[in-house]
């Protein structure tokens, strides 16, 4: 299954908004993996001296994995109350990444549920991999209203 998302569609899957929404579109995805594209914008908040840092691959992978988790949530429990990302492992390689660079991010689901999942993946620029890592993403439940609900006592 191939899916190409617009920015509007991405905003339904991720809580991020520009300029923190760094994915430009999803090139392809299925239940277990996704291939995303990020075109580095001039207002990217991670830029240092007009270069995108290779450590920004953490954020890119988190957002790519988030599209998979977000899609899963939309099929089940709806919008989460928030999300957390835990960095399990990562490796970096030095690379100069200018504004306008097209970065390809591949994320693969390793284990988990609709609520939290482990992803691994990498980010590349001009076919040169500069980031590889493993992240845990978890969707947090929204805080219930301040009274006991029927759902609580079910």
């Amino acid at each position, binding site marked *: 299954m191939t899916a190409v998302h617009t920015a509007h569609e991405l905003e339904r899957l991720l809580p991020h908004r520009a300029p923190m929404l760094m994915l430009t579109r999803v090139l392809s995805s299925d*239940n*277990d993996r996704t291939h995303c594209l990020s075109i580095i914008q001039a207002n990217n908040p991670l830029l240092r001296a007009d270069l995108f840092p290779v450590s920004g691959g953490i954020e890119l992978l988190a957002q790519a994995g988030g599209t*998979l988790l977000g899609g*899963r949530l939309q099929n*089940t*429990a709806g919008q989460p*109350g928030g999300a*957390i990302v*835990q960095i399990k492992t990562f490796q970096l390689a030095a690379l100069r990444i200018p504004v306008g660079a097209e970065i390809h991010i591949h994320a693969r*689901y*390793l*284990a*988990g*549920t*609709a*609520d*939290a*999942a*482990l992803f691994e993946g990498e980010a590349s620029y001009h076919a040169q991999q500069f980031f590889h890592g493993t992240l*845990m993403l*978890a969707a*947090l*439940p*929204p*805080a*219930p209203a*301040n*009274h*006991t609900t029927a759902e*609580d*006592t*079910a």
Partner: protein
Amino acid sequence: MTETGTPTAAIGIAGSGLCIPDEALASTLGFTAAGLETGLLPPMVRRRTSRATRVAIAAAERACVAADVARQLPAIFVSAVGEMQVTDQLCTAIGRQEYPLSPTLFHNSVHNTAAGYWSMATGSMASMQAMAGLDDGFALALLEAWCQLQTVSERVLLVVYDAAMPVHFLPDYHWQTGAFALVLDRNTGDLPSLHCPFQAQSPDPTVAVTDFPARNPAMACVPLFQALQQADGGAQRLTLSNGPTPWQVTLVMP
């Protein structure tokens, strides 16, 4: 995401154990069998370890026995200040220029001391984490355990502990030493279960506020452990921390 099973936000409590060396305090809180017995540690090791480490290991041991599981579980140890008594001894020695410093004290002063002794005593090669989160420690450790159970672990041992602080560090605080441990299971089955903890946007007037975290951050576990003892069926929301946006969790008893 295939073969993930039925999505669930709940985790089971397979066993629990606690250690409150002050018998009067334990009795006041309604707990029995809370003494400081650490038979798991060989006598020589026991003499070297701090009170904080011993209460943590005593509680962990009880939880594993209650859950009837092997002790070689992935474990999360959380403490607000960890080995502050040991650190205080080291700082006092430095102040008095009593060199060389004790290697044993130095070895025992790190935040993962309890986790390290637990892994050595049990021969566990499973992952061990040492966390700190002050008053939110229990809530955040529970969240970490929930995440691990959703992703990579079938069972997790969670140990929350804190020893009394040196009086001259926090003279206005009178922390009471205590440790609480849970063996948490990915599958709820017929077990008491916990939903994912959440941070309320404001204190909930229908959820009892406790002063336990002020007594010692680990004491934030007391409402949950008291609820587990009562064994009343149904769901109830419990406070895990205080403040304007307190952490809470829903406990469902079978």
